[in-house]
């Protein structure tokens, strides 16, 4: 990839990390809350269903995670294996899109 492309990936990696730092915190606090209060799956769904804020939060969270994982795995592969070029870029893109699809499906499942 070009210097410009690599630099943009780096910027996106930093930006997604910024989002993740906040989102992971909210996510973990939510998990602790749910466990402490012994909430069942049904009780959780009752709280998230139809709530546009939770939907919006998880859509953004998943997008940041997908971006961060895709870019990060590409960097790790380039550093630790001889894998380079288009095939690696494509594999990283596939990982990101797969994470995005699975994550958004789950987020929509909480909403609807």
């Amino acid at each position, binding site marked *: *990839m*070009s*210097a*410009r*492309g*690599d*630099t*943009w990936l*780096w*910027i996106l990696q*930093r930006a997604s990390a910024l989002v993740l730092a906040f989102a992971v915190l909210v996510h973990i606090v939510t998990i602790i809350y749910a466990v402490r209060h012994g909430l069942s799956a049904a009780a959780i769904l009752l709280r998230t269903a139809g709530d546009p804020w939770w939907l919006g939060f998880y859509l953004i969270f998943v997008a940041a995670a997908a971006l961060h994982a895709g870019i990060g795995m590409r960097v790790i592969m*380039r*550093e*630790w294996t001889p894998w380079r070029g288009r095939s690696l870029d494509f594999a990283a893109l596939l990982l990101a899109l797969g994470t995005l699809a699975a994550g958004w499906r789950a987020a929509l499942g909480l909403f609807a």
Partner: protein
Amino acid sequence: MGETLHVAVWRGTAAGRLVPYEVPVQESQTVLDVVTYIQRHLDPSLSYRFACRVGMCGSCAMTVNGVARWTCRTHVRRVARDGRLELKPLERLPVIKDLAADMSAFFEKWTRAKGTFVPQGELPADFAVVPPGTPQRRAADAGIECIGCGVCYASCDVVAWKPDYLGPAALNRAWTLVNDVRDAGNAERLKAVAGDAGCHSCHSHQSCFERCPKAIDPTASIAGLKRATAWAALRGEL
């Protein structure tokens, strides 16, 4: 004093071996003094590199007890363990023979990082005045005393993992030029130092900073390049 230093010295090329020598201990003895003693008194076929002996030229760096150091200003009493020294050529570079590493790749990367001053058009009539208090001048000053010894390069994990990584010294040099207000080569330079082989591969381990004999912080310079290239990309100039 009559004490003896037990020195194991790398002999041969990559497929060499450590050869033991015994060198008399002297007051204020440097590691370079030890190597010179071996060559003059014990084995004249020993190859090593030095020039100034006072920490200016950057040619005498070696691996001393596992750590890259400038040998001319490293006192034996500070680094010897139980009267023992192990001397090897710099790591991350091919060995020419004995303690002389091939620095070609190291300096080629300075060229690839556009570490050369690019003048702005016509030669000015007088010296350019660069006020010492400006942020750019301060940033350039912080990295300008590099003597090109290769200690940072030999200590860098990323260089070990990625052979095409430009390395701390070349990137530090590029950063001093990015901050040189007289220079006109930044558009090309930022392109050269961005991306996978450049500043974005740095993990900020800071081994370069820890081991630099001139106390330069290449990690900070590389962080500066990350910022500069990111802003250039955002402005569409990269």
